[in-house]
């Protein structure tokens, strides 16, 4: 299909504000009479609040009030409470909030509050908690028994605290890379005949692996500000959606969702950590309600590392069976997740990564989310899939080598296509063109020739080549679209998805312009504040925006087109089918002179009322969209619809990366010197935006491979990495100076615009390409990320590794 807008670059409306400094983020909004809140946080990793004495603080000039857990809706473990009381579960956990007329006074008041704690035992390494007699993160147990699936990765985990213990001998087996026997697991799934798969395998590889937990490092901390006006709460937050956070925030504040106005024009990075309401939002909301003044709670960089969520770590074991022809017959995987105090884990999605990109005939997952007294955990870019991608790539390389197969060819043999069954239920995908992506990358990187060339050591440098695959389910459905044409001919594209800087809020709006066959200059994207009447939208997360919201924009615009035609038929006779659109006019097909402009049709819609101008709307739209339509009713021609388009199974976002690394054997430092990333994300919607997502994800992959990690001191559970420098994200000097990329650009049949998302798998394929390349260069896989210079130097010098076997929290 030839499109007017889709597949072409454009200037998203928010870019200029970003380069001029006009773009506003939460802390840039200041209000007359604003009050500043600060947090007293826990110095203990585990315990209970016995008493709080804030009398002295409250007597200070300028202090306006304090909040404790008693002032907020009750929360039950293992939910991350707004303010902790009965279960203090990590260092840096908020206990008391103070409001004052200045930030400095609030901070000083914190020092005048006395909190008496009762200490409890704590744990930082899941395996230590799993062993019989080992410490538990909660008095009631050590393991999350999850009661809902994480189909939506932004969903709140539901479940209870339970206890699972293994004999020391079985924990030792796992530590030594062997399968533990006769032990309990919390959860898991199986498909196919595992034993038959291993029986027909030519090569069986059994390995253990570790992936470290990682902080999100959003450049903008999760600050928030709230003010009340005329009974309505105006809330300024850094979120991944304007609409998806409204109802949970209303719940936290105990008010009607209609009384929340969420303002989030720009979000300085979310990466999964701002997909939902963050608990500290309740503090600003509550204080502003009580004090009847605007309240800002600034979260510092250091606090981000304590109370911002992070990616769960994994300790695991995997046994892989591969047939002589290179097809993967069976994969058996055990994952022990470091769930922090929230138990959040990505074990199932980790295993699903394998099921999608290596399409094994049979597979089993057994897993346990273990609580630890470390940072709360949540979704982070490609949760599960990306860290598994890092771990499994060198293992699959090993299998390919033992079979004498080219590593890219091995992946091509197993690549998912449009009829491949995926996941534990072996369901369908909307489409998949992984083999085409592999071919494109192979050619662009000149893989075959480079892979065949001998690896030569030059001085103290060795080089290695790697290939990695990335996957994430990249598309939802069932949300609503809303467009409005006003009498001046302007086309307003209402959009409730967040603005993380992927520009997909704008790229997806272009689907509506496509359907309306209008100039982009005639369109205006309406977004950023729910007061601007935004439809029910997904979060901007899970790589879903491109698929999900091209569909919502498409159906809303189709509704508008149908109304344009019906209005013209009323004016000029006949039925709607006798009319077409073009040049922002609706006209008779057999006599194009008979017609009217979009602006004239909008005026007519206002006269006609009913569904034409939004006084009536479909029954199946969400209450948030209903309120949005009510807000704009009578102001133009309103197109509104729920996305009821057909969708078959999972919409996969797929990536392949190829990388070359150069390792300095004296220092252990390595650089990614060449990199290519190719996406299978359906039709390219926005080329520059796609390039940003492919390469941005790759930078994340390099960080996961080389440097990013949580580290907790086992003596005191103190986090060691509480700064950019310590938990180091890549700088511009850590990435190749050029990063060519591309996409197969084949339409997905379940999206009228053809697109699927790819923001997350781009990290997974990149980290995998690097771990694969390191193993290629060294002839040894560490089976863990990050791979640090110390590990390389110790390996070269045949010294004992500090990062022992399955240990977490290593430097």
């Amino acid at each position, binding site marked *: 299909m030839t499109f007017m807008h889709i597949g072409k670059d454009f200037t*998203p409306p928010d870019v200029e504000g970003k380069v001029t*400094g006009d773009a506003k983020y939460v802390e840039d909004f200041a209000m007359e009479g604003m009050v500043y809140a600060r947090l007293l946080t826990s110095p203990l990793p585990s315990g209970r609040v016995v008493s709080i004495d804030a009398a002295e603080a409250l007597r200070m000039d300028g202090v306006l009030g304090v909040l404790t857990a008693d002032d907020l809706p009750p929360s039950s473990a293992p939910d991350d409470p707004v303010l902790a009381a009965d279960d203090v579960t990590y260092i840096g956990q908020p206990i008391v909030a103070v409001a004052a007329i200045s930030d400095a006074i609030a901070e000083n008041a914190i020092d005048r509050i006395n909190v008496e704690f009762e200490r409890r035992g704590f744990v930082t390494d899941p395996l230590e908690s799993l062993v019989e007699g080992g410490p538990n993160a909660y008095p009631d147990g050590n393991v999350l028994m999850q009661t809902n699936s994480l189909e939506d990765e932004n969903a709140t985990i539901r479940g209870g605290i339970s206890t699972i213990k293994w004999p020391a001998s079985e924990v030792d087996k796992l530590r030594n890379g062997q399968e533990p026997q006769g032990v309990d697991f919390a959860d898991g799934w199986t498909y196919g005949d595992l034993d038959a798969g291993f029986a027909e395998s030519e090569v069986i590889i059994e390995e253990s692996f570790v992936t470290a937990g990682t902080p*999100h490092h959003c*450049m903008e901390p999760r600050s928030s500000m709230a003010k009340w006006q005329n009974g309505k709460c105006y809330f300024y937050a850094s979120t991944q959606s304007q609409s998806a956070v409204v109802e949970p925030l209303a719940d936290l504040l105990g008010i009607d969702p209609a009384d929340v106005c969420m303002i989030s024009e*720009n979000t300085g990075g979310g990466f999964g950590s701002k997909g939902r309401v963050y608990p500290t939002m309740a503090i600003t909301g509550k204080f502003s309600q009580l004090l009847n003044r605007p309240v800002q709670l600034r979260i510092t960089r250091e606090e981000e590392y304590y109370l911002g969520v992070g990616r769960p770590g994994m300790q695991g074991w995997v046994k892989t069976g591969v047939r002589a022809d290179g097809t993967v017959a069976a994969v058996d995987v055990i994952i022990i997740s470091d769930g922090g105090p929230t138990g959040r884990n990505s074990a199932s999605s980790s295993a699903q990564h394998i099921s999608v990109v290596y399409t094994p005939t049979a597979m089993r997952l057994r897993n346990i989310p273990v609580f630890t007294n470390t940072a709360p955990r949540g979704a982070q870019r490609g949760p599960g899939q990306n860290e598994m991608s890092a771990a499994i790539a060198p293992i699959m390389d090993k299998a390919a080598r033992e079979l004498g197969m080219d590593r890219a060819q091995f992946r091509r043999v197993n690549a998912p296509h449009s009829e491949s069954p995926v996941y534990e239920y072996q369901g369908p995908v909307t489409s998949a063109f992984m083999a085409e992506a592999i071919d494109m990358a192979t050619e662009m990187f000149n893989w075959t020739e480079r892979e065949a060339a001998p690896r030569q050591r030059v001085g103290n440098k060795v080089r290695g080549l790697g290939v990695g695959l990335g996957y994430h389910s990249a598309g939802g459905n069932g949300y609503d679209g809303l467009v409005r044409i006003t009498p001046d001919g302007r086309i307003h594209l209402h959009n409730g998805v967040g603005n*993380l800087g*992927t520009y997909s809020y704008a790229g997806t709006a272009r689907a509506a312009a496509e359907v309306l066959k209008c100039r982009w200059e005639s369109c205006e994207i309406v977004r950023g504040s729910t007061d601007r009447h935004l439809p029910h939208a997904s979060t901007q997360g899970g790589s879903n925006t491109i698929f999900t919201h091209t569909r919502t924009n498409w159906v809303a615009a189709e509704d508008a087109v149908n109304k344009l035609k019906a209005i013209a038929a009323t004016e000029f006779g006949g039925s709607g089918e006798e009319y077409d659109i073009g040049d922002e006019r609706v006209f008779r097909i057999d006599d194009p002179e008979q017609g009217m402009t979009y602006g004239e049709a909008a005026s007519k819609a206002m006269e006609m009322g009913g569904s034409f101008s939004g006084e009536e709307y479909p029954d199946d739209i969400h209450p948030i969209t209903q309120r949005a339509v009510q807000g704009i009713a009578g102001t133009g021609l309103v197109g509104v619809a729920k996305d009821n388009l057909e969708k078959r199974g999972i919409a996969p976002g797929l990536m392949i990366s190829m990388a070359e690394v150069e390792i300095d054997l004296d220092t252990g430092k390595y650089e990614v010197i060449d990199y290519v990333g190719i996406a299978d994300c359906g039709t390219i919607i926005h080329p520059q935006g796609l390039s*940003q997502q492919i390469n941005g*994800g790759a930078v994340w992959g390099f960080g996961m491979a080389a440097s990013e990690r949580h580290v907790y001191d086992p003596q005191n559970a103190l986090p060691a990495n509480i700064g950019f420098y310590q938990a180091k994200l890549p700088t511009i000097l850590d990435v190749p*100076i050029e990063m060519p990329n591309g996409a197969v650009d084949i339409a997905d049949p379940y999206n009228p615009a053809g697109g699927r998302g790819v923001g997350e798998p781009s990290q997974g394929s990149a980290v995998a390409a690097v771990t694969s390349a390191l193993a290629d260069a060294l002839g040894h896989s560490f089976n863990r990320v990050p791979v640090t210079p110390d590990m390389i130097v110790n390996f070269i010098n045949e010294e004992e590794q500090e990062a022992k076997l399955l240990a977490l929290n290593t430097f």
Partner: protein
Amino acid sequence: MNPKLSRRRFIKGVIYSSAAAASGTGYYLATAQTNSNAVVERLLSLTVNGQTRLVDVAPTETLAFTLRNKLGLTGLKVACNRGECGACTVLLDDVANYACSLLTHTVKQTVITTVEGLRAADGQLSAVQQGFVEELAPQCGFCTPGQVMSATALLMANPNPSREEARQALAGNLCRCGAYDHYLNGVMRAAELLS
């Protein structure tokens, strides 16, 4: 290294950034107690974006705090407040500096430029801003004002940089979105626009 960035100034900056990192909130160095008896000039005359601005500044206040909270110049961002990320980068006498790591009292003799000061009077974007727009350099945008200022300082000192020189010039500006190559494309485009 830019000759205007003296070793002495660099060391001073590092010392201040350590002090900022050691303070509790790390946002500003001023506390309620330090306001009282010190005999220090409070009313400073600062040259910011071509204007003279009179502003009441506490002795231990950082430039980032003064610009954002006293002068309303919120373009620069405070993302780490300890000299790690560069989101608060401003120009002092055309040299890129971290505003979070300087005390306002130490810069009263300098010409300060923030991201708000780059646009022409008629609203036209500067070459760096235009280059960044054309190459879709920003993602989330939080680090962008700092990237813009570092790139601007580079092109003032070296209007025709190589890609490697541009990379070195932006090395003090972290971007979590990983938009590094797009920023580099933006700098190179800006250099073309200037030539």
